[in-house]
Each structure stands twice: as C-alpha cells, then as structure tokens.
C-alpha cells in the first residue's frame, strides 16, 4: 500500500502530464464527482455498496440461470457450479500469493464465474471451463491489481482465452433438451447466427425470444436476460446508456443493411434476439470497472461495440462478435475516458 502511494506521488511530481484519474468504481457510486483516488483498495467507506451491487447483479442473473437449467438440464447447473468454485479458489490463491486481504466475499469472483459459465456451450468440458475461470481471475483481474483496476472484463477474457484455445469445442453446440427429448450430448446443432451465416437459415422468433435454440448456456433466452437486465437498470446498478446505445446501434445498422439487401443480411430483430447481444449488452458491457466513467463515454462505448458487432457478424469470419466487440471497447475505454472527461477549470488541454 505504501508503494502505491509513493508511485502515485512520483507520477504527479515527475511528469508534466498528470495521468488521467479513473476513480475506483466503488467510489464513483458514492460520489460521482470525486476524481482523485490515491489510496489502494479496499476503500472501506464504500465496501458496503460494492457488496450490494455485486449481489444485485447475481440476483439479476437468476432468470438467465433458471432458463439455462430448464433448457440444458443438470449440465447447466454443473457448469455454473464448476466455474464459480474455480473462480473463488483462484481468487483465494491470488489473495494468498499477493499477501492481501481475502476478497472472495465481495461477490465479484462469483459473478465472474457465473458470467463465464453462462457464455460457454452446454457440452463444454468442465476441466477446460476451470482453465477459463483461472485465466479470468488471474490474468483478467489480479495481475492488474485486483477488483477495480482491470482493463478487460475478466469473464470475457477467460472466454476469449477458451475460444482461442479450444476453437472446435467452443463452437460445438447442442440442442436444448426441450427440443429433442434426448441427452444433450447426442446431437450437435448450429446457433441461429451460425445457421444464418453459413446456410442462410432463419430461426423462428418465438424460439429466439424464449430461448429454445442452440447456443451458450445463458444467452439463448432473450426474455430471461431482459428481466434481469431491467432489474439492474431499475436499481441503477448499470449505466442504462450502454445497453441502450449498444442495442440501438446494432438495430440501426442491422436495419440499414437489411433494407439494402434482405437476402444477404438478416433483419434487425434477428440481430437483437440471437447470439449473445442482449446478454453482452446488459451484463458484460455494463461492468463498471471496464466501461467509461462519463455519460458521454457510455454512449460512445455502446455505439462502438454495436458497430463492431455488426462488422464482425456481417463481414467477419465468425458468426458472432459480441465478445470481441466488448473486449475491444474495453481496450479503448481509457482513451474514451480521456477524451470525454469534463475538464476542470484552468486545466490545460493536454
């Protein structure tokens, strides 16, 4: 802790350009205008609200978890449990290695575990899922200094790691048990986006809406995600601008391409309901640590992610691009913060 304070002091005295201060997200909740946080976590005066937020996110994820259980059976529960146990254990090991206070009770590791599990295919090997969870917590969070300092969404980073490591397993989907009445491992299927991209097959809207389709555990049921997402927005635990501009820009751009050539490009409703768009927009993009702190930044973040989703879905090699889009926008978030931050009076432009 002393080291950190010393380092920060150095930065300010030695450099002509004072680095941008991104407040710890927890302090932002208490006092949004507070721009200078020099001590390291934990911020005791705000710990309570961190707990509250984290647990409300977990509650918001319940509908999606319930639907995944309904469509994919015991396997879904097993996957969620495995990931959560793995993230919690990694968190504990990391705390121990860094010799810091144990942080498993703040709920963030649980959320990372649930989010990761919900973005994996139902038949994915549990041992590989553990690898994803370990990467998410260690490389996604603790190497940056722990909660509040990470640049990339840990769950998405873990998932991207798995996608690059096991490309075939990560794109092998199975039908929901409600559709086949057989063991889920038996039949492999395509996601609606994959079916459209490679074979130009459209999926029925009601199936998309309720989630009776192939896909990652938690992303298939639009209605469950909407319920959870709206719950989060009502509690003001997520910046509404991000999902709005994210979904809005996908809808807008999707419409333009669809009107331009309906045979080549799917309609905007299909874009919204398929793949991980809603799940990503409500639960991944709104992560307070890795998204911009300014309202204007929120708009830019969402719109940028939406544009990238459309580019990847329509012109890229992969059927789905929500994960990559959010990760890319996570990467440019510091730049967005830098250029949308309200200037303090008398401060130079640099």
């Amino acid at each position: 802790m002393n080291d950190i304070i010393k380092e920060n002091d150095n930065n300010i005295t030695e450099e002509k350009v004072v680095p941008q201060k991104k407040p710890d997200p927890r302090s932002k909740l208490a006092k949004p205008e507070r721009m200078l946080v020099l001590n390291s976590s934990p911020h005791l005066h705000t710990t309570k609200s961190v707990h509250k937020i984290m647990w409300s996110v977990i509650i918001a994820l319940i509908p999606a978890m319930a639907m995944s259980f309904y469509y994919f059976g015991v396997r879904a529960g097993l996957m969620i449990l495995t990931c959560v146990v793995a993230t919690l254990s990694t968190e504990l090991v990391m705390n121990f290695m860094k010799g810091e206070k144990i942080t498993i009770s703040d709920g963030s590791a649980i959320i990372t575990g649930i989010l990761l599990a919900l973005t994996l295919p139902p038949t994915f090997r549990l041992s590989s899922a553990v690898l994803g969870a370990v990467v998410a917590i260690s490389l996604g969070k603790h190497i940056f200094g722990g909660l509040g300092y990470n640049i990339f969404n840990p769950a998405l980073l873990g998932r991207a790691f798995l996608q690059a490591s096991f490309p075939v397993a990560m794109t092998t989907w199975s039908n929901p048990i409600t559709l086949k009445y057989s063991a889920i491992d038996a039949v492999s299927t395509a996601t609606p986006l994959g079916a459209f991209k490679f074979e130009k097959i459209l999926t029925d809207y009601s199936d998309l809406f309720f989630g009776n389709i192939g896909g990652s555990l938690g992303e298939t049921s639009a209605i469950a995600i909407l319920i959870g997402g709206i719950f989060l927005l009502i509690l003001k635990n997520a910046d509404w601008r991000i999902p709005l501009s994210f979904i809005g820009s996908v809808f807008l751009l999707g419409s333009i391409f669809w009107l331009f050539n309906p045979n080549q490009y799917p309609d905007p409703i299909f874009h919204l309901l398929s793949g991980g768009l809603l799940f990503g927009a409500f639960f991944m993009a709104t992560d307070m640590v890795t998204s911009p702190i300014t309202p204007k930044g929120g708009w830019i973040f969402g719109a940028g992610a939406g544009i990238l989703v459309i580019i990847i879905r329509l012109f890229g090699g992969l059927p789905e691009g929500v994960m990559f889009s959010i990760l890319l926008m996570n990467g440019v978030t510091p730049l967005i913060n830098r250029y949308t931050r309200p200037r303090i009076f008398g401060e130079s432009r640099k």
Partner: protein
Amino acid sequence: MNLLLLFISAAIVNNFVLTYFLGICPFVGVSKRVSSAVSMGLAVMFVMTITAAVTWLIYHLLLVPYHIEILEYVSFILVIASLVQLVEMFIKKVSKPLYDTLGIYLPLITTNCAILGLALFSVLRDYSFVESLVFGIGAGAGFTLALVIMAGIREELELSNIPKPFRGAGITMIVAGSLALAFMGFAGLISM
C-alpha cells in the same frame, strides 16, 4: 488483391504489432503516454509509406535486373537508415513544430523492425508498386492504432496496484496478449 482488403488486412486483421510482433520495442518503449504514442505512430507511418515505395523501386529496378538479390538485406537497411536521416533533415527544415513533435522518435525508427519487416514482406508477397504503397500505409495505421490503445491503457494502469514484478514490461505484454485476443475477432474480415 483488392486494395481496400489489403489495407484492412495490414492495419487490423494481420496487425503488425499484435500478430506479426513487428515493432515491439517501440511498442513497449514509447507507449507510456498517449501524446507521444500518437507522434511516434505518425512518424512510423510516414517513414513506412516512403520506405515501401523506395525499397520496392530498389528491389525491382536495381537488385532484380542485375541479379544481386543477395544484397537485399544490406541495401534495404542502408536505404532505411539514410531515409530516416533524410526525413529528419527535411522535417527540420520544413516545419519546426512537426520536428519538435516527431524529432526525437525519428532516429529510433531505423531499428524498428516493423520498417524492415514491411520491406521484406512486400518482396516476399510479390506486391506491385501500388499494393506495396497501400500495404505500407495500412501497416503504419495498424501500428499507430495498437500503440495509441496501449498508451491509453498504460496511462490508466499507472494508478493500479499491479504486483511489483509485473510493472512495466510484464503487464504491457499481458495487455498486448489480451488485445491480440480481442483482435482475433477480426479474423476472416478479408475473406468474405
């Protein structure tokens, strides 16, 4: 090959820094401040474009006709070194403010492997003169993009509680790896 695809390929899909590991030294060294990253990126882009043109001419009008391709590496590196020198002198004469911004980065560019890499790739892939030029601009734009994103992140990380052994180069590599992961989403953009 379609020139637009070539540009997108060089700048994003096969980003010089994130997929070919070219220009890693300045990527680690000059990515602490966004402002200097922008200047460095522009300087590299500028030199890349000129290098792409000049080395193409040297290779196809001098080395190939006289069957002295063996001198490829020697001549390329000499060309790049003198080019950087010339560009530096030229900028100094034409625009003082521009020189003040780019000046200190120009000598560093000689040993930036992205520049030599650009010339080598363009010979290896048998690009035409125009293709080689577009390739140069695209690669420079991609380098600038990666460098500026990295600088933004590193400014932010200065306030982080990064474990001591990872401060500096270690965390830069981890962030670069994460960015490279994110950039994998663009794979296939050029095949559709």
